[in-house]
């Protein structure tokens, strides 16, 4: 395949990865929670979109409008019932990992039981179409997914930069104590940010339903990819997440082209190892110390 073609496909995919990883970045940035369950929730979202399509003929892109707000509220419920309990703990970050881990296991088990381990993929018509641009083409489904990702990320950006709550969120990410001092209700900001993060997981799930094949156990691979991505970009940095998502997706695309699709996840993991070895804080992050 033409190299430019591969790069374009990589960029398109990178846009979707950005959407997925940004939810993680937001949650980590605001609350210092490493949400290991993000992948599992994405898969859950994928199943909802899939069954919406195969059982009720609702296009995954439409069910997105249902799943996203649904996951937002789900996120708020989950956050409120679980995380305030461990907030004061000295081993907070480690505990959040374990808690998220537990949630991922619960989801994996439940999904495995009720949806079985059969490999699934939704196939609305646009999955097999593609759009031509001269010599280059892009699968229609991928294009739609990328557009949706850009729109959602754009909405998040607007929220963070033009709304009062968005300012408060950015402030909390940059200096939680100071945000409290100027009157931000950081608990409320945390709750809403968790909801937004989960909403992005749900939306990503809708996209996954037709972009990829999925099954319950797959969430491990997803979360490993996404975390590798945000570690490279620098934990808590939106710009870092975006850049590393785009670059790694392009590289993975090239790797897939040259060596076979089975090796493309390796790109993310190898880059994680390299980052940890040479620059643990990632491109744009601060050194990760227990705070």
């Amino acid at each position, binding site marked *: 395949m033409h190299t430019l073609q591969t790069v374009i496909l990589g960029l398109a995919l990178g846009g979707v990865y950005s959407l997925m990883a940004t939810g993680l970045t937001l949650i980590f940035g605001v609350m210092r929670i490493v949400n290991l369950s993000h992948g599992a929730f994405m898969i859950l979202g994928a199943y909802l979109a899939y069954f919406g399509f195969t059982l009720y003929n609702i296009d995954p892109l439409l069910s997105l409008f249902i799943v996203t707000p649904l996951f937002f509220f789900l996120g708020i419920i989950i956050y409120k019932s679980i995380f305030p309990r461990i907030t*004061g703990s*000295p081993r907070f970050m480690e505990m959040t990992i374990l808690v998220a881990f537990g949630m991922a296991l619960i989801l994996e088990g439940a999904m495995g039981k009720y949806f079985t381990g059969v490999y699934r993929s939704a196939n609305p018509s646009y999955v097999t179409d593609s759009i031509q641009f001269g010599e280059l083409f892009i699968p229609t489904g991928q294009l739609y997914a990328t557009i949706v990702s850009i729109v959602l990320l754009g909405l998040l950006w607007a929220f963070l930069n033009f709304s*009062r709550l968005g*300012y*408060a969120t*950015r*402030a909390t990410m*940059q*200096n939680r*104590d*100071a*945000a*409290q*001092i*100027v*009157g*931000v*209700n950081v608990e409320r900001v945390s709750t809403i940010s968790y909801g937004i993060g989960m909403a992005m997981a749900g939306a990503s799930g809708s996209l996954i339903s037709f972009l990829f094949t999925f099954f319950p156990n797959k969430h491990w691979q997803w979360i490993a990819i996404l975390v590798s991505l945000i570690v490279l970009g620098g934990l808590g940095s939106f710009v870092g997440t975006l850049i590393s998502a785009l670059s790694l997706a392009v590289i993975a695309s090239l790797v897939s082209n040259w060596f076979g699709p089975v090796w493309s996840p390796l790109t993310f993991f190898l880059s994680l190892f390299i980052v940890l070895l040479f620059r643990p804080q990632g491109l744009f992050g601060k050194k990760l110390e227990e705070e």
Partner: protein
Amino acid sequence: MTLLQVENVTAGYGFGPDILIGISLTVEEGRTCCIIGPNGAGKSTLLKAICGLLRPRQGRVIYKGEDISHLRPYQTLAKGICFVPQERGLFPDMTVRENLVMGGYILEDRSRLDQEIDRVCEIFPLLKERESQRAKTLSGGEQQMLALGRALILNPELLMVDEPSLGLAPRIAADIFEKIRSFKDFGMTVLLVEQNARKGLACADWGYVLDLGKERIEGPADTILADERIQELYLGKLAAKRKETRS
């Protein structure tokens, strides 16, 4: 009239030991008070307990006759207490202006925000100059000014500042103290915590000496400054030695 009353407050961090032990303190309206004392005495802890970042384990904090002991920072803010922490508490990736905007976060009437920012920029012209610069790129003195300016957006009745001169060169620290001194003219009550006892007491009306979580001495600032015990303990043994060798 008494603006702030700290009654027998005991406080500490997390599950750790008590840092403040039965502290009592009063701050009169319109006064500038300076709290001095060695490291670990609990000066920062006291300010945090007053503004609500820490909850007192025992005792009460009373502001204008109202018990505010269990209020959180965003609530004490609404009462008119603004706090500038030791680390300045700026938002590093936000611009100077954005930091000031955050200073007015709880303002109901958003249209007033611009007015208040302009007012603060008149007090600290430097902030207007550096409006679009990110806070983390400012120098130490500039950051301190931004921190103070931000606290002034809400026109607080009680301004609490924790170690304004920390990490600043003497000349810049002097500027800061000058500014703090001038806040009196706005009718503001200022509660100051300072390592630099000399400079701190020099710009204050009243002084408190805190040691090991207990209040030891209080009185008019210049009296404390002149007090030999204080001179010996907090203004440097060197000064005391010098006095000895001279006499």
